């Protein structure tokens, strides 16, 4: 396991009681329970957040290489064909 760093976290009493209960049921220390539960949630959140960026990365990797107006992204005149130059 990576080096552990001490920190202070404030919990509402009912949440702390639930946490202690879960830890006892699983045979974990409270500290281990926090690491496992937070680690699981944070990991899922990070993975979820990456997905939108990954979709955009894939768009760039598979970018269209044919001829288009260089200002396609910023020129709204091209929308619906108005002012179409190609």
């Amino acid at each position, binding site marked *: 396991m990576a080096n552990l760093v001490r920190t202070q976290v404030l919990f509402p009493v009912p949440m702390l009681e639930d946490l202690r209960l879960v830890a006892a049921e699983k045979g974990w220390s409270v500290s281990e329970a926090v690491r496992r539960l937070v680690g699981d949630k944070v990991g899922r959140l*990070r993975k*979820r*957040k*990456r*997905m*939108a*960026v*990954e*979709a*955009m*990365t*894939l*768009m*760039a990797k*598979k*970018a*269209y*290489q*044919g*001829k*288009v*107006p*260089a*200002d*396609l*992204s*910023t020129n*709204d005149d*091209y*929308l*619906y*064909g108005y002012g*179409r130059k*190609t």
Partner: protein
Amino acid sequence: MILVDADAYLALNVEKDAHHKQAINLLGQLREVAEDLVTTWDVVDEVATKLAYFTTKKKANEFLGLILDSDTRIEFMDRGRGRLTEKLFAKQSSKKVSLTDCANMVAARELGIRKIFSFDRHYVRNGFGLVE
């Protein structure tokens, strides 16, 4: 949260677009900050339409598949947002600010978003920051 505008998606999707390389560089920043990404259906519509016109229909379908299957949050227009968008559009002095841009700003304000991934400076004039 960061709102992604149509020009950013188009620049990523088209290699010969003038902003393609810049968009890829900025994408690296988005990866670093790990913020949730939001766009509007109006943007999805605009990007798919332009891609179909100027690249291929397959490319447009591919874009739709990628965006809709990702966890990008897509905000939709409703009657309330429509009225706010109309008011914001009326306030704009530049005719270059599109109704889609205004819909983006209305959605962004509702969600408390301060930053937009776009190359369009008029967002700055309307009080937003750009990813740069």
